[in-house]
């Protein structure tokens, strides 16, 4: 184990894994509610939110950007509902209108403002830069107990721990209403469960997690992890809790294998390529889903 292993590999890998697990847990409910593409939409509109926050505050500090992104996510959710109700079109089309329009706005604003100097561009927003979230003070296991070295950890790590904690708390506290309103919204409504509130809370949490994950690891991982692990887990079992556990396993597997394949794996097959870890993690999660779609026990579902 090299000296820099913890700082250069374990820390970014952990950040990727935290983002993956938070997204995957929520993704289960999106898949069951046929709202998978909400994650896609939210991840697109984060861009204009961040750009507007940058234009307003003139800084790239994290606080305003997270706020801007969260606000954009919320506005987009409202706009989608509005377009859906006014236009009486399918939710997918309403979503498509809103997220492409807002994303286009974000790109144009970005091009118009002088953000070029502060290293911020669309590609960075898409791919994130997982490889750069290293912990240079993390030379050896000893630094795990060294206060000064710990203060040097990438701040994204702490934020993602908080996000994961928020997801877990949400699941524990709202478990029963969430499950009931997911599987049988009509019954839930009749039984007095605040179905709309639960739905809104779920989407808000998806937005928060997507924004936090987006800032750390980029849009690709966020979208892939909101959908692929949960979809693969759905093919493994008919029961919810095992499905959540499978999705966490798949998310961890994607993050670890993807990160490894992008770095060491490439070196192993003797190529000097440096490859986007975010892209690799997304591709691995897709491969896991493909395997499940071919071979998972419950791939056909209970009906057919």
């Amino acid at each position, binding site marked *: 184990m090299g000296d820099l292993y913890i700082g250069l590999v374990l820390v970014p890998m952990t950040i990727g894994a935290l983002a993956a697990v938070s997204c995957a847990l929520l993704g289960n409910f999106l*898949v069951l509610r*046929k*709202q*998978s*593409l909400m*994650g*896609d939409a939210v991840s697109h509109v984060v861009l204009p939110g961040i750009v507007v926050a940058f234009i307003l505050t003139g800084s790239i500090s994290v606080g305003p950007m997270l706020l801007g992104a969260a606000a954009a996510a919320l506005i987009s959710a409202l706009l989608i509902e509005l*377009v859906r109700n*006014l*236009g*009486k*079109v*399918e939710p*997918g*089309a309403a*979503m*498509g*209108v809103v997220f*492409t*329009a807002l*994303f*286009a*706005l974000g*790109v*144009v604003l970005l*091009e*118009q403002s002088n953000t070029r100097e502060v290293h911020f561009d*669309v*590609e960075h927003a*898409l791919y994130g830069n997982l490889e750069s979230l290293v912990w240079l003070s993390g030379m050896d296991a000893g630094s795990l107990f060294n206060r000064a070295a710990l203060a040097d950890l990438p701040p994204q790590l702490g934020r993602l721990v908080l996000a994961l904690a928020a997801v877990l708390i949400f699941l524990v506290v709202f478990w029963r209403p969430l499950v009931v309103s997911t599987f049988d919204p009509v019954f839930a409504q009749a039984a007095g469960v605040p179905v709309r509130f639960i739905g809104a809370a779920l989407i808000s949490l998806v937005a928060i997690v997507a924004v936090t994950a987006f800032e750390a690891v980029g849009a*690709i991982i966020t*979208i*892939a992890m*909101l*959908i*692929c692990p949960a*979809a693969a887990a*759905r*093919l493994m079992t008919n029961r919810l809790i095992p499905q959540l556990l499978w999705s966490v396993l798949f998310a961890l597997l994607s993050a670890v294998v993807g990160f490894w394949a992008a770095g060491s794996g490439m070196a192993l097959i003797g190529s*000097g*390529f*440096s*490859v*986007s870890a*975010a*892209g*690799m*993690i*997304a*591709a691995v*999660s*897709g*491969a896991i*889903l*493909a395997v499940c*779609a071919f071979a998972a026990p419950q*791939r*056909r*579902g209970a*009906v057919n």
Partner: protein
Amino acid sequence: MIDIAAFINALTFSAGYNTAIVAVGAILLGWAGGTVGTYLLLRQRSLVSDALSHATLPGVGIAFLLMAWFGGSGRFLPGLLLGAAISAMIGLAGVEWLTRRTRLNSDAAIGAVLSSFFGLGVVLLTIIQSLGIGRQAGIGSFLLGSTSGMLRNEAYTLAALALFVAFLVFVFRRPLTLVCFDETFARTSGIDIRRTDLLLMFLVMAVTVTGLRIVGLILVVALLIIPPVAARFWTEKTNTMIVVSGLVGAASGFIGTALSASVPNFPAGPVIVLVAAVLFVLSLLLAPARGVFYGLYRARAFSRKVHRRQGLLAILRGEAIYDKDTIRVLKSEKLIRGDGTPTRAGLDAAETAAREEALWTIYLRNNPDAAYRAARMRLDPIADRLTASEIAELERQFAGPSGVLPAQ
């Protein structure tokens, strides 16, 4: 900011030969996208195009690598587009397969294909970058599109492709419309639904691939989604919607490329999408069929008529009116005075209202099927809604066998 002279130049196709070719391509592309998108919306499959467009990226990467491998420039546009088309078809097959053969819904299938293909594409892009075979500018522009710095050959290729797609759409518009409008009728008229759906997907793929270089793969779906949703507000008829949507798309392509050519740092792709979005918002607010303002106006007019009618009936019965809105409506038409007592005109109108209510009641008894329509119609003067002979018949029934109208 905006250079008006340059903008007018661009609008009149005189801002340079390349720009003009690109503009023509964008117009054709916008028209084809709007038209194909309408079919897609009516088949409720709009977001399949999102999976399709993201799935083009690995194909572009592989085509680039292959062409560079064989000593080509790697940036050869037809080759890249062919790669894009092949990998888009694989992605589409993936979506179809996941939806058909597993329990996953189409939204999860779309999202999964979209994100994993895109991830794979990004991996390939980073490989290309680290290979350092240069000229990645051509590749990067597939993400967000760009028209500046486009070679003349590329502009020709895109315009020709757009023309080809527009031609296909025009040729196949009848079976497509039939399938979207009435699947059962289409089947009984001998149209193969499955083959028509495949054709539709091929057209979507063609629009997407053509749009990649101009609008970029993240936003090209907007060309297929925004125009038809905008057109939805203008009409309830499929054929009209197809035409309106094509026009919205073409206008977006035209105005978007012109703006992009005349304003610095205005990338063509996002600007075309923004123009489409503006047209969408205008449609949502102003369109006569389903627009917000017209809807509000209609709701207000209806509520006014209800207040007027109820107020007049109350006058006739000699009841006091308490509802503020009713009083306001009656006063504004000088049917009651400030103290709430009816004017001469008010009494006349009240008698007319009572007579029409009575006639409408008979009409409803005769035509129970018309109840839904009559609920709105009966607030208008009866002579505007029924023919003179219909009214005469209602009056005959109202008077009864004696032939004398009862006193009011």
